[in-house]
């Protein structure tokens, strides 16, 4: 076995391992198998003998035992355990690669690893690894063929290798588009674990020492029309503050009427409204986010719930991304749900009333008072993610307002709500996300866990007015590459990971609709916008390649050869002749046949030989040749 083939085998094994290691859920300890594997292949390339079979067998047995342990106690997950198993086997096998079946075993294991990884990962890197795997496999295929045939040169195989790779890629795309989809993933495994949450259905103060900004992307939102203000992606509200934590007590969940896929909450507003296309990562909550004042929501779910405070829920355990389109007015909600609870202040915060009245002295309207409190908090307190827990028994709010005078949004919002309540203005805490990075390449917002935010809604003049007492942060500038990569990731998430039955139906409908009628289809859905140009471009590209090849072949041919080929094709229809016959042999076959123009054919073929291979020929020969060509073509 040549060393190059060994190295190729090693690389394919590595793509398998890499695909697994890049996915979530694998134990990182198994990274250690990679150096062992490399060592094994290194030994092979250097020509050391393979490991003793008892050693290999013994290790394999131990690995199998470990596998059972893994499934039952360690990872308790069949997919992850099989992944671990294949990685160890890769390492063991690398010490024992012999002709001709062992490389095949490695390829097969790598394939299994890729299948497992496809189930475990949602990362775009997987696509890159997959492409490497395909290229590696195709090269290995050709290479093993070359070895078998005893050839040495690879150069003539470069073109077939490339074209085969491209064909396989296209096939994969077609298969991907056409494969039947079911709800959930292939193995029915949940992918939600491992995602840390910045948004939580509980808001508790004074327990965490320091909050780390988590850059995990939570959702991506494209808003139309683009708004000029800082967007607040409203999640849920909290009404009672008890034991330093906010609770949601009074809200009642109601089912929203609507058929599957489209839920109407309200009449569309006459003024301007916002259409938000949102792709939400799997979170540990049923709450979904949007701009306030949703009147219609399109989501692929059985049920949609709304509570009295305007929080929306999709009551399904989600393993995949949720994609939904929300139509919002982005106007303050009406205070229909006003309740005494919104004036609740914990007993131990009695001093707060005096503290607040001091600030709002002389102001008359609730709006002025609220704005003053907001300004007061913004200007006199310092934003900090590092908050020391208060001494036992001490209220974290008192600590924030009087002692440390620093905290993060939850402190600000809590403080403001309680201050408003203490002077008789109903208020509540709202949590969700704020802002996000605007990606101008894809015209959408990237919202990360670190954008999680809490703010205040106060019932003033019959509306839940929004206040945000937290001092604004300076905006983060991202590099072009980072933005573009995220744009690619969005498309990957939407069209590869999130490719669903509905997308299949839409694609099918799109392809089966005549071009003229296409305007009727909802133009705003993304595949239609992109697939047609891509499809057209690839067809044009294929035609160009085909044309170029034909042109090249034709250009290489002389004119008489083209005539000859045409006649040959005609004759091939009539006679059972091999494609690789010479003109002479064809002539013999024609003479022996019962074709009526056989003598002309024979003369034509003879003339062809003269014109094509002869040293010199007269003008008459050419004229005769063309004449014969026409005559045969007419009569055959």
């Amino acid at each position, binding site marked *: 076995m040549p060393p190059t083939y060994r190295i190729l085998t090693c690389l394919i094994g590595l793509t398998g391992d890499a695909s697994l290691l890049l996915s979530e859920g694998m134990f990182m300890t198994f990274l250690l198998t990679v150096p062992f594997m490399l060592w094994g292949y290194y030994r092979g390339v250097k020509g050391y003998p393979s490991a003793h079979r008892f050693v290999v067998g013994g290790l394999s047995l131990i690995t199998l035992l470990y596998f059972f342990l893994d499934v039952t106690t360690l990872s308790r997950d069949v997919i992850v355990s099989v992944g671990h198993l294949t990685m160890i086997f890769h390492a063991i096998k690398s010490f024992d690669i012999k002709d001709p079946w062992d490389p095949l075993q490695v390829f097969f294991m790598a394939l299994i690893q890729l299948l497992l990884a496809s189930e475990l990962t949602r990362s775009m890197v997987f696509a890159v690894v997959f492409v490497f795997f395909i290229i590696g496999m195709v090269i290995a295929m050709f290479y093993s063929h070359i070895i078998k*045939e*005893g*050839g040495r040169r690879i150069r003539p195989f470069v073109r077939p290798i490339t074209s085969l790779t491209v064909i396989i890629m296209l096939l994969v795309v077609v298969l991907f588009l056409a494969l039947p989809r079911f709800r959930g993933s292939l193995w029915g495994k949940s992918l939600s674990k491992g995602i840390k949450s910045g948004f939580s259905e509980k808001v508790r103060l004074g327990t965490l020492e320091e909050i780390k900004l988590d850059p995990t992307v939570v959702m991506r939102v494209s808003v139309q029309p683009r708004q000029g203000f800082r967007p607040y992606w409203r999640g849920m509200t909290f009404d009672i503050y008890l034991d330093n934590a906010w609770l949601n007590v009074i809200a009642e969940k109601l089912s929203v009427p609507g058929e599957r896929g489209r839920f109407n909450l309200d009449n569309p507003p006459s003024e301007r409204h916002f259409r938000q296309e949102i792709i939400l990562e799997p979170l540990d909550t049923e709450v979904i986010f949007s701009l306030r004042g949703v009147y219609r929501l399109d989501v692929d779910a059985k049920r949609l719930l709304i509570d009295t405070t305007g929080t929306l829920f999709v009551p399904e355990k989600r393993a995949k991304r949720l994609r939904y389109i929300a139509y919002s007015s982005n106007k303050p909600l009406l205070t229909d749900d006003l309740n005494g609870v919104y004036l609740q202040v914990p007993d131990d915060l009695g001093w707060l009333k005096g503290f607040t009245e001091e600030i709002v002295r002389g102001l008359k309207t609730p709006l002025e008072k609220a704005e003053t409190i907001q300004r007061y908090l913004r200007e006199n307190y310092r934003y900090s993610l590092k908050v020391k827990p208060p001494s036992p028994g001490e209220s974290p709010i008192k600590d924030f307002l009087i002692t440390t005078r620093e905290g993060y949004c939850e402190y600000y919002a809590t403080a403001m709500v309680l201050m408003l309540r203490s002077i008789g203005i109903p208020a509540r805490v709202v949590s969700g996300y704020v802002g996000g990075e605007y990606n101008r390449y894809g015209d959408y917002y990237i919202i990360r866990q670190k954008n999680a935010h809490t703010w205040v809604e106060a019932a003033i003049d019959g509306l839940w007015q929004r206040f945000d007492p937290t001092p604004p942060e300076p905006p983060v500038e991202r590099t072009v590459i980072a933005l573009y990569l995220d744009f690619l990731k969005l498309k990957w998430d939407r069209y590869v990971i999130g490719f669903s039955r509905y997308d299949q139906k839409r694609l099918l409908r799109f392809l089966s609709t005549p071009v003229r009628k296409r305007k009727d289809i909802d133009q705003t859905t993304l595949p239609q916008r992109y697939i047609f140009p891509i499809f057209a471009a690839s067809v044009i590209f294929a035609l160009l390649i085909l044309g170029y090849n034909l042109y090249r072949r034709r250009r290489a*041919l002389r004119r008489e*050869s083209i005539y*000859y*080929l045409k006649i040959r094709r005609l004759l091939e229809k009539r006679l059972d002749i*091999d494609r*690789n*016959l*010479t*003109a*002479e*042999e064809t002539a013999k076959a024609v003479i022996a046949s019962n074709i009526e123009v056989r003598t002309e054919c024979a003369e034509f073929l003879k003339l062809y*030989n*003269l014109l*094509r*291979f*002869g*040293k010199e020929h007269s003008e008459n020969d050419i004229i005769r040749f063309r004449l014969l060509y026409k005559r045969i073509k007419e009569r055959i």
Partner: protein
Amino acid sequence: MVSWIKELQNILTSVIKGKDRAIKMAIVTLIARGHLLIEDVPGVGKTTLALSLARATDCSFQRIQFTSDLLPSDILGVNIYNPDRREFEFRQGPIFANIVLADEINRTNPKTQSALLEAMNERRVSIEKQTYPLPSPFMVIATQNPLEYHGTFPLPESQLDRFMMHLRIGYPEFEYEKLVLKEVRDLESVESITPVVSKEEILKAQEAAQEVHVDDSLYDYLLKIVARTRNHEQIRLGVSTRGAQFLLRAARAYAYVEGRDYLLPDDIKEVAPLVIGHRIILKTRTYIRDAEVLVKEIIEKIAVPL
């Protein structure tokens, strides 16, 4: 077609019946300035072919029966002391003829074989610092009996290489064999052959044949065939560059015999099995094959130039 070639063919076919192809190939070899190796069982007309070719071409003819005790000097000639002139003078061996029939060449020892083959290749004989050119045209027709192995020295591949063509005559077909039986056919019929062509005409034809026009695509075609023999899975040793040269020369001569001044792929197709067949070594342990058939198969699969 040059008229004498047709005549020559006619005369030879009248003597050796049903063997048109073998006769044609013998003429092709002569015109291509090559040597012919005929391998077949005794009694199918090897000697008759050689003899009648010599007769009909007005060429001198010598026959050497190879035996195990034959010495190089028996073929090439020897310096003999002339007592009258008091000096050594060279006495030509039987190789000094236009057409030499080396009968059962594998019966003699390698030393003698190589002496012959060297002379064949260089077309001259060197003895004791003296070089004597061989007559022109010069052609060796060697025969081999494929069935007898005892006491033979099979020609090594490197020497087989010197022969342009390796021909098998084979038994005549039923009809022709019947004709042979009916007719009185012995050496008399060969004796009665009168020359139809002079040596000069042959030499002219030899020159003209190498002027046959070869289209560039046919060089590619020929080299593709040669290259395929080198990377074929059933072949251990493929065709050398000299083999390729021989193939081209033979094909040109074939085109000339066919009466054309340009080469066709058909010419290459026709002569290649005979020119290449004995130049390749098969992986005999795995594949028991006939080299000639294999070469034919190879050629069938190579795309004919358009």
